[in-house]
């Protein structure tokens, strides 16, 4: 049909989601979806089309889908400024499956629902108004092929499960979550991920802390040192670093929706993003994460890419197109689509804060006064990723290196590079973990898979508390 490049992704997705609210089954849903997405470049213009018509092996329907992709690309010729070009990538032929110890789809539904029901009851027993427990499992079998000779098959399984207790009183609503408040910490593992987090053991504490938060005093307004737990720091990394260094945002491709970035290509290699102890990298080869894979959705082989070294910005996350626009030799392998019917976008493959060399215990004990902030609550950042405000679910006052009183609404805010320059310590490998969640990006919105690795980290002189109506 005249296209100079084409690729296709067939994705077969199985998903199982269970939710128990107040000891009653709230929802039990199964998704079984298969389809194909076809992307072409025709006379320097992108075209994309998708269809569900793959199960019937209809050559005719596939050809129609290709034609739609090409026709769509043709319409772009009227407004073409420059031809689309891709950074080179060798052809790859590979089969790969993310390792799983216990198949989550092999565990009986009654076992799952019993666990959730008991967790929900345990939260309610502590006085929570709402006790919700959830499990979710997903398996994508996907095949990628392109006109350059790549043929890549990957099987990606993931599991998540979490608790959320909501208490109501004193004219307010407070929530506590475990193991995290955003996306239930999705792991690229099987049922073993659920066993590791031991939901039932944590449920009473989650319920009790939700109730406790109602009467906790509000976080005092002050400038102080904060230690941020991984359950909150993942979102900090996500919003005020990982999005800011996405090449498509930097180049303005998201200007009409999510926004752009304060980062420009000229800043790479010389901009001080954080303190000396801040090192960021992207690495999809980290095992056990929901964003672990061997090849991205453009068939690019993944590898570790340093983004910030000793505080200095040294790289961006890229696709084949953006790498070419930035004059790079090769894509960073950071491109993924949420499903077959989505186009691949620049995504953050395990963009992580590298561990430091101090234990969490030493980090805490060496903090004379401050706050420990845990589990993401509300979050917001401007459209260039500079001014952010987070309100974690809970704060704990630190006095003389010891956690003392719980406080509610521990809002903190700052400007991105100023904040990361306040980081004076990151806990070590022993404390470091990867936490998976979701992120909306693109139009149509793709609720994509993301994950970030981090340990606890300390930031000096952060403004906390706020003037919010509480």
């Amino acid at each position, binding site marked *: 049909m005249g296209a100079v490049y084409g690729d296709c992704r067939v994705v077969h997705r199985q998903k199982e*989601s269970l939710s128990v609210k107040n000891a009653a089954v709230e*929802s*039990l*849903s199964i998704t079984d979806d298969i389809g194909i997405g076809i992307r072409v470049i025709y006379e320097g213009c992108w075209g994309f089309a998708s269809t569900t018509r793959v199960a019937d092996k209809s050559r005719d329907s596939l050809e129609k889908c290709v034609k739609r992709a090409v026709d769509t690309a043709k319409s772009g010729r009227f*407004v073409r400024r420059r031809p689309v070009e891709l950074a080179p990538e060798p052809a790859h032929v590979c089969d790969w499956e993310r390792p799983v110890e216990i198949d989550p789809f092999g565990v009986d539904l009654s076992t799952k629902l019993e666990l959730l029901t008991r967790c929900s009851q345990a939260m309610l027993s502590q006085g929570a*108004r709402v006790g*919700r427990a959830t499990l979710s499992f997903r398996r994508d079998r996907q095949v990628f092929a392109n006109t350059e000779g790549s043929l890549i098959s990957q099987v990606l399984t993931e599991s998540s499960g979490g608790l959320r207790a909501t208490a109501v009183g004193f004219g307010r609503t407070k929530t506590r979550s475990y193991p995290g408040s955003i996306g239930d910490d999705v792991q690229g593992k099987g049922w073993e991920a659920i066993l590791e987090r031991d939901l039932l053991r944590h449920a009473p504490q989650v319920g009790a802390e939700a109730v406790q938060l109602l009467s906790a005093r509000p976080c005092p307004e002050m400038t102080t040192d904060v230690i941020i737990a991984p359950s909150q720091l993942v979102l900090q990394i996500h919003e005020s670093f990982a999005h800011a260094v996405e090449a498509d945002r930097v180049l303005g491709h998201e200007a009409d929706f999510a926004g*752009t970035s304060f980062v420009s290509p000229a800043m790479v290699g010389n901009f001080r993003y954080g303190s000396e102890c801040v090192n960021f990298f992207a690495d999809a080869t980290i095992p056990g994460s929901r964003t672990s894979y061997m090849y991205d959705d453009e068939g690019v082989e993944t590898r570790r890419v340093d983004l910030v070294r000793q505080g200095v910005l040294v790289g961006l996350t890229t696709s084949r197109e953006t790498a070419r626009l930035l004059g790079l030799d090769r894509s960073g392998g950071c491109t993924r689509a949420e499903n077959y019917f989505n186009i691949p976008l620049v995504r953050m493959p395990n963009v992580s804060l590298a561990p430091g060399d101090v234990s969490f215990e030493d980090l805490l004990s060496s903090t004379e006064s401050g706050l420990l902030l845990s589990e993401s609550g*509300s979050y917001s950042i401007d459209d260039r990723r500079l001014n952010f405000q987070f309100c974690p679910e809970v704060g704990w006052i630190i006095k003389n290196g010891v956690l003392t009183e719980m406080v509610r609404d521990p809002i903190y*805010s700052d400007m991105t590079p100023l904040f990361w320059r306040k980081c004076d310590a990151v806990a070590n490998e022993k404390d470091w973990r990867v936490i998976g969640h979701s992120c909306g990006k693109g139009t149509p919105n793709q609720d994509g898979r993301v994950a970030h690795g981090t340990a606890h980290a300390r930031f000096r002189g952060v403004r906390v508390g706020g003037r919010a109506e509480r």
Partner: protein
Amino acid sequence: MIGRDALEQLATRGLERSEGHPAEVCLDAFDYRLTRFSDGQVHQNLSMDGMYITARVFDGARSGSACLSVRAPERIEEAVSRALAALRYADVGPERPMPRPEQGYVSPDGSFVDETMLGGTDRWRAEVVQRVVAAVEGRGPHAYGRVITEAGERLVANTGGLVSYAPRTRCDLYVTSIWDTGYGASDRHAYRTADIDPEVAASESAQTCIQARNPKPLPASDYTVVLTPYAVADLIAFIGQLGADANAVQEGRSFLAGKAGEPVLSPEITIWDDGLDAAGRPTMFDAEGVKKDPVTIVRDGLAVGPVHNQATAAREGCRSTGHLPVFSPVTRAFSSPQPGYPALPQNLFLAPGRASVADMVRATEMGLLVRGLHYTRVVEPRAVVITGMTRNGLFLIKGGEIAGPVKNLRFTDSYVRVLNGVSHVGRDAQTCADATGDGLGAIRVPHLRVESLRFTGTTDF
């Protein structure tokens, strides 16, 4: 378009597999097209079509349900069979009676459909991009944006005889203009392509951008604000989402809980939801196939009522108002209905008043004109405390006149508190998108002038 008859036959094939159990299927067919451009260059051009099928099977005695979602019509029997297999585990579900046939809605032929969209819109979108880029760049700024069209049909049928069906078309245009330190934006939403005027949208975006260049810093404080419909839509969306969900009212999580008939917002404020009003973006029935009733949520500042779905209505012994939310099958790959079974108003309206924008500015000795809000998130749900940033144009008002652009500010405030301080309501309403811009519904609101919005932080641009 597939048509009602063909979809109903498909639904019947599925429902026959329910082995005597009450069952419901929802078929959502779509043809979605998008062209996205950045600095005048198209960088995404998409064509997506398919069908999203959800099957739910109930057990009357146990009131449980399970659902299976697939995207291929040939798998409808499998969808019902697998939902049936999962049903045996859902043995303690909450009461959620299946809606009766008279609660359904079948759209009259041709309503809310633009036939010019049915044959594809590739050329039309390219022309719109061309016209927008020319109009924006002709004034100086760089042009960014997207043009979306969608033609679709939804049919919900259940074994009790309910059939709801409606075809739909929609088109959306978003234009963002950037010129060094200046930003501007506009958007338009309609179900007919003829109702979208690219030049008008481009002009609004570009003019705002030009006026917003070289903003000056302003300290964070409490300011009187004049809010454009883009900003007002955000306020009303959160009031609806957090306040009007009957689940939240029943559980005491809503600011409306226990307040029926009492003042909750300014007497200037009347908010309602109407899924059949063509001035908004109609979504005539909900995910359970129940026709959307118009529901007044706040009248003259007094709390009236939440919106209901089947489950929340059953708890109170009242009738569902048709508000189990529907989502675009393109953008929200959820297994519908959602966990949590919220009841959401997706077609919100705020009653216009009598003021012009000039009246509002003239009445402001010291304040801000807020063109848009960005990344607004909940800090405290019961009081609807929200934080977010201003975006795409923030202007200082001094002595009753626009004094010039200022740098963006962060706000953190209770929208309930803010909407208790309304002094002027604009006379002209505009249809705005929901928060993601991908939703099926819309929010139609006028400008507002409110006495105080609490700004809590500054930024560099």
